[in-house]
């Protein structure tokens, strides 16, 4: 297995080590559309890595725009996190398309972030013409980015197909931002969530094109299979949880008017995750998961409250409860997966999650924004680990749900030879001509009939 593209995202790769073993014995047939039930094929890894960075881009972009509008003092560091995301994406593109391709991508991608910043500035200055100008520049970006990807993928991605998706990305970010500025926080957060989800589909499309373009580099595996779809879905919901949690905690300590909406968005994310669990482990399993999962969100909020009140005892209590949560959550998952996921491994992973979120929050409160946003990015990336581990476990535990073959091994046999040129004897030709005429008439009548139906 070539690790060329995986190298692009060393951070997520190292975090994926616990599940990397799955990748080994799953080489797919080189012909046809044979699918793989591993969530960690080279193609699925690429999709996951791209999904991580694309969704994080949408999340960080919206949050940066909002902070820009509010002129908060952590704006520069948050914008810096967005730049680091761009650098990681550029490294991924470079690993596939070389230095020149990467540089072109970087320039284009950075330009669109710049146009968003222009839009934010114009909004702050109540400069309608400036907003229009930024939107015009963004439309130019859509065309350039689509053309770039069509060329890079040698036509596997079509500019005509890409443009609506890129426009949707822009519309979602702008609308989430406009809604926030207008004080309609619920609309803002709901559209932010849609913007994150949309990027997950972008990753599926680009990963499909790249793996089709360089099949040898990806062991001929496919980026979109039922198993890879599950992983991508869990990746997206888990990572989004980390992002929304950090923001809700910030909003809580700052007494921001959008705290309720951001907390509700975090709970809506928890509902999505619970629904995913329920779809495999039943309604009861989903409900049990939901209770445990939401409890930890509650403890984080308690921690924020205690911090706001300078209440060390309250903080200690919240941390003790988070410790208990880790044990409960690990026990639940280990039992639901019939011990395929080990409680001790789960506890280690969950503890890391809790520590990362608390670190991001404590650093934010202390005014160390750079460290805080590094913790945020770590926390976001860390969630790929449960995404990979849980999806592979589910695939192993419910193989029937993933055994369906969505690609045929061969083309259909759509002819019986009744109109084929025959190299037989003349009388056969003569006979055939008559049959043909009769058949044509027959077919015509049938068509007429279906027209009338």
């Amino acid at each position, binding site marked *: 297995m070539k690790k060329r593209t995986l190298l692009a995202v060393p951070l997520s790769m190292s975090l994926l080590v616990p599940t990397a073993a799955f990748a080994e014995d799953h080489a797919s047939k080189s012909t046809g559309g044979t699918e793989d039930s591993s969530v960690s094929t080279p193609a699925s890894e690429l999709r996951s890595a791209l999904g991580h960075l694309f969704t994080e881009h949408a999340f960080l972009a919206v949050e940066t725009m909002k902070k820009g509008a509010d002129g908060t003092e952590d704006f520069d560091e948050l914008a810096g996190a967005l730049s680091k995301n761009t650098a990681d994406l550029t490294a991924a593109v470079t690993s596939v398309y070389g230095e020149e391709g990467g540089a072109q991508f970087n320039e284009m991608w950075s330009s669109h972030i710049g146009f968003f910043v222009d839009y934010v500035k114009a909004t702050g200055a109540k400069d309608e013409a400036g907003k229009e100008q930024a939107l015009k520049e963004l439309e130019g970006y859509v065309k350039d980015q689509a053309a770039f990807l069509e060329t890079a993928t040698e036509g596997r991605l079509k500019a005509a197909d890409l443009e609506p998706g890129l426009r949707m990305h822009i519309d979602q970010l702008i609308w989430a931002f406009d809604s926030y500025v207008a004080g*309609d926080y619920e609309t803002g957060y709901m559209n932010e969530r849609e913007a994150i989800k949309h990027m997950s589909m972008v990753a599926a499309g680009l990963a499909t094109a790249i793996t089709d373009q360089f099949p040898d580099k990806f062991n001929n595996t496919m980026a979109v299979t039922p198993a890879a779809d599950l992983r991508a879905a869990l990746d997206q919901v888990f990572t989004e949880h980390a992002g929304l949690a950090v923001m809700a905690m910030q909003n809580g300590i700052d007494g921001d008017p959008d705290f*309720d909406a951001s907390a*509700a968005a975090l709970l809506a994310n928890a509902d999505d995750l619970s629904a995913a669990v329920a779809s495999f482990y039943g309604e009861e399993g989903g409900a049990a998961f939901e209770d445990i999962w939401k409890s930890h969100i509650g403890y984080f909020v308690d921690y924020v409250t205690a911090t706001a009140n300078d209440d060390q005892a309250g903080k200690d209590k919240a941390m003790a409860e988070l410790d208990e949560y880790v044990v409960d959550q690990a026990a639940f998952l280990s039992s639901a997966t019939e011990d395929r996921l080990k409680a001790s491994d789960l506890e280690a992973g969950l503890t890391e999650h809790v520590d990362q979120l608390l670190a991001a929050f404590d650093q934010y409160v202390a005014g160390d924004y750079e460290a805080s946003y590094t913790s945020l990015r770590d926390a976001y990336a860390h969630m790929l680990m449960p995404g990979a581990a849980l999806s592979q476990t589910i695939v192993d535990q419910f193989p029937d749900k993933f055994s369906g073959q969505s*690609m*045929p091994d061969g083309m259909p046999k759509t002819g*019986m030879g009744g109109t084929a040129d025959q190299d037989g004897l003349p009388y056969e030709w003569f006979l055939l001509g008559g049959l043909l005429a009769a058949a044509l008439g027959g077919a015509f009548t049938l068509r007429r009939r279906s027209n009338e139906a």
Partner: protein
Amino acid sequence: MKKLLSGIIGMSLLLSACQAEEAIPQEKQEASSQEASSSTKTPKAKLGLSDRQLSASKLIKDERPGIIPTRLQIPAINVDAPVDPTGLLKNGDMDVPNDIVSTGWFENGYSPGELGNSVIAGHVDGRNGPAVFYDINKLKKGDEIFVTSEDGTTLTFVVDKLETYPFDNSPLREIFGFSTGSKLNLITCSGDYNKKGSYYEDRLVVFTTLKSTSNE
């Protein structure tokens, strides 16, 4: 103004809900379902979680719903045929319709309308004469294809290109796999007829892209 008002109403509802909650002693087990307080006056006093569902004045969703096709119309070549769901043969090849007048949508794959390549196959001929897809080789770039579901939703696809491939060496992923666009590909037989094996040597694929959706 309207938005602001509903915001205020929402807020006050939330506040009254929390006031009711606050009478209940704190129970950590219930943290998940706790209705909550976010008093705007003293935001730092006690934060909580509301289980209230969010609502948006406008939601921009990336939705490409697929349909289960029941009727296929290609005016350019006078085709108006039923579409039946079609799966796989035991050998893993795509199955074909049972008769020469209907077409088969590959139900294991993508649905017309969603992101990805959906496929409808039809016979070029029967034992004695032409079948439903006899004329699809006459289609040209820009020709329209209509696919309708039972509930009357009609999707319009536009022909991008026609390609011919050897039957045993077709780019299956390009024809059946995921795509960044909503695609519909029509397949029929073409090329020489191998009498011995009773099959055509080639497959003609008409590649099309979704243009619009209408609900009658």
